[in-house]
């Protein structure tokens, strides 16, 4: 556990990817498989769900630290992270632990779920007393289901590849899907044998960067397959050995949530993997994403929901054909085969080939791209003819060419401190627009400013607070920001009557005064534009 906590610290303290890979590789190389596999499990973001209710964790920590409730809460304000607060607040350990990671996970962490409160309390306090601050922090993060560390899956894959000598693309595929963190799995992961036992395993998704600057840098438009960029749930539909699996890009198995797509599986040839986008789809057109959100928000799917918000998968690519991995074949070969498969399953009505957009020039495409919003898409995807299906996010062969976001000038009205890295800085803002002579809140945004700008806004908030409501402060309406967002719709739940999607700060408009901000009427006019 100490070594894993040290690894966490090393990863936390550097932003250099090579140093991160080195640290992970060094850990893996010097750990027994039963520890290494857990480390990989946690590092790639597979974490157990919260094992103890926050309320109880807090109560037991308060008891063990011997501080009053109010002082615990005051301290939380300063730290902004419960796991860290508890690690810092508890008295120094009375013992040390040399027990390895897998012991702590398998014998102490996971059993917490089934235990009664007395046992859990005893187990937890016992653990805290043996751990130093670093270990406690990592431990508390695991217990609260909030373990996160600044490494991407691809860095972990690079480290495993380095230690095992197996190609990174192979490792990348092997860590996908549903596996148990056992020494056996670690042996499979790092072994030379390429036979694949898991029939549900998806492939790593190929992802695109946004194209920056002039589109003409891509030269001849005829070199590119152009598709609409659909706004749904990116997923893989897998049909192997008479079973159907549907995976989201977040590597969540979502088969049960889409019975119509699961049924579609039986129409696919044996050994088929399709990359596509799940959309709420009716009358040959996508429904607004909000409808999909409504559907995935429901625990149980009613007949009515299935009728009102039917799902379809818009197929982008074919990754496996007849049980063979065809990711290295050229784009047009894969697409031709995909078209055949879609045709043969056409009776289902839930599988659609993502149409290719034909246009003679970039100018024509630019004109078409401006029609994205009315079509319910986010712009274009550009895929180079002849290219393979790559692993992860790469530059060169795939680009997303999105429609410009909406933008509105709004006034900063409320601010509250962030958490974690941003604790005790005012980083979370509510913005308002004019409704006659009143400012009505219309969006919250947290991102888009530089650290330097955040510090300046933070200082402004402190100097210009009007009222405090718990951690939230209302401030003098003075600062104007350009808020960018992707979607807008009517919402009776919001005071402004509108809800926006992915709002963020595009720019601090230091050249504008509050009176120059947009009005509710101009913003409402964006709906349906």
């Amino acid at each position, binding site marked *: 556990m100490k070594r894993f906590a040290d690894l966490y610290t090393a990863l*936390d*303290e*550097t932003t250099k990817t090579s140093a991160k890979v080195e640290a992970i590789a060094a850990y893996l190389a010097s750990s027994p498989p039963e520890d290494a596999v857990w480390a990989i499990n946690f590092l790639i973001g597979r974490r157990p769900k919260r094992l103890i209710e926050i309320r109880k964790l807090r109560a037991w920590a308060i008891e063990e*630290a011997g*501080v*009053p409730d*109010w*002082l615990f809460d*005051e*301290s939380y304000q*300063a*730290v*902004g*992270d419960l796991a*860290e*607060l508890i690690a*810092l*607040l508890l008295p120094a350990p009375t013992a040390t632990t040399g027990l390895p990671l897998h012991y702590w996970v398998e014998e102490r962490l996971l059993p917490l779920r089934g235990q009664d409160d007395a046992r859990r309390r005893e187990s937890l306090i016992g653990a805290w007393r043996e751990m130093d601050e670093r270990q406690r*922090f990592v431990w508390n993060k695991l217990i609260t289901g909030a373990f996160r560390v600044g490494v991407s899956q691809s860095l972990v894959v690079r480290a495993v590849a380095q230690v095992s000598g197996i190609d990174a693309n192979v490792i990348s595929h092997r860590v996908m899907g549903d596996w148990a963190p056992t020494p056996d799995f670690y042996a499979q992961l790092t072994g030379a044998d390429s036979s694949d036992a898991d029939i549900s395993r998806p492939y790593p998704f190929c992802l695109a960067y946004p194209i920056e600057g002039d589109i003409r840098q891509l030269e001849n438009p005829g070199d590119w397959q152009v598709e609409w960029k659909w706004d749904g749930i990116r997923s893989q539909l897998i049909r192997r050995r008479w079973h159907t699996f549907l995976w989201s890009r977040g590597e969540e198995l979502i088969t049960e949530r889409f019975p119509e797509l699961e049924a579609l599986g039986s129409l696919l040839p044996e050994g088929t993997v399709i990359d596509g986008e799940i959309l709420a789809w009716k009358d040959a057109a996508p429904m607004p994403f909000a409808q999909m959100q409504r559907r995935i928000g429901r625990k149980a799917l009613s007949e009515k929901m299935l009728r009102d918000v039917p799902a379809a998968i818009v197929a982008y690519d074919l990754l496996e054909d007849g049980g063979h991995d065809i990711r290295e074949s050229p784009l047009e070969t894969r697409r031709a085969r995909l078209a055949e498969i879609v045709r043969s399953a056409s009776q289902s009505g839930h599988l659609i080939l993502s149409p290719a957009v034909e246009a003679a020039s970039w100018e024509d495409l630019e004109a078409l791209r401006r029609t994205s919003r009315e079509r319910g898409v986010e712009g274009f995807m550009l895929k180079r003819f002849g290219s393979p299906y790559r692993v992860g996010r790469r530059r060169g062969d795939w680009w997303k060419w999105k429609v410009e976001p909406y933008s509105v000038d709004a006034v900063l009205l409320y601010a509250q401190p962030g958490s*974690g*890295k*941003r*604790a*005790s*800085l005012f980083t979370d803002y509510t913005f308002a627009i004019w409704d006659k002579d009143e400012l009505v809140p219309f969006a919250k945004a947290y991102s888009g400013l530089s*650290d330097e700008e955040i*510090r300046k806004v*933070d200082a402004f908030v*402190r100097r210009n607070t009007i009222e405090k409501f718990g951690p939230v402060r209302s401030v003098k309406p003075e600062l104007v920001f350009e808020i960018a967002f992707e979607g807008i719709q009517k919402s009776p739940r919001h005071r402004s009557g509108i809800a926006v999607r992915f709002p963020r700060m595009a720019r601090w408009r230091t050249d504008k005064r509050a009176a120059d901000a947009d009005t509710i009427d101009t913003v409402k006019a964006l709906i349906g534009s």
Partner: protein
Amino acid sequence: MLRVTPDGLYCKAGDFYIDPWCPVDRAVITHAHSDHAHAGCQRYLCSEDCAGVLRARMGPGAAIQSAAWAAPISFQGVTVSLHPAGHILGSAQIRVEHKGEVWVVSGDYKLEPDPTCRPFEPVRCHTFITESTFGLPIYRWRAQPESFAEINAWWRANQKMGRASALFAYSLGKAQRLIAGLDPTIGPILCHGAVENLNRVYRESGVALPPTQYTGDVAKAFDWSRAIIIAPPSANGSSYLRKFGPVSTGFASGWMRIRGTRRRRSIDHGFVLSDHADWPGLLSAIDATGASCVMATHGYRAPLVRWLTEHGLEAMALETRFEGERDESGDTEMVAE
């Protein structure tokens, strides 16, 4: 006896201010950090060890009178004496006695030993005005030798990787304490001009420091990868660092105890080392004064006040200008962290 006025903490009976934040006629100074020693006062009184650094800050024209430790000085029947606070060289607590009533103003202080200044001495009093920069129980310093071992190990590791070590610290006090704790057998200790100037003043005041050199004074082909460079925090991210080649950056401060603060500062390594008292330090210092009334200034006043009140003392927060709002004070040189 003392009250907060627009110009600072004022003693009417003795007609003097303690650490005023405006130019006044008579200022008694706890220590030479700029949020406590304001320029432009007619006359200053400080401890005998503080005079050198205060002079360096205020220039040759300032009227500075120094007092021997614990020596009583009378202002219109009010007796003032200075007692070591352990914060930086010459830092003092100010004891004020009038008609049998005793108040002590702590200034900034710490309880840990520090080879660059006299250790904190508790002074019995009725009312204690204490700092509370780190007035939360999450602030608990570990044993100092551990912190220095960590810094020296970091320096060694950087050498091995072929990169220079740049350690940021407030140029008055923290820098010299760090230098005194470095292991000079590892390699050369180089200092930013602001730090080196104060090193000289420290040495002139009789503080022993390992040899240091001004970064501007080295030969062209100097091998920076073996060196540690001590510089003020403002040097981080500036062109000053460029000439050292590959460099790892570190920052030593009590605020570094919190992960969020460490990460926000865009430095490679945060060392927890403070010249202020931690939570247990504050509580034990307050206890040792025997004071029945405590006033808290700086930082986390409210939690300390509530804690003391719940433990039977009369306590209150005192609004001073020794800092802005809590935290982030580590970002500026306004507060001596």
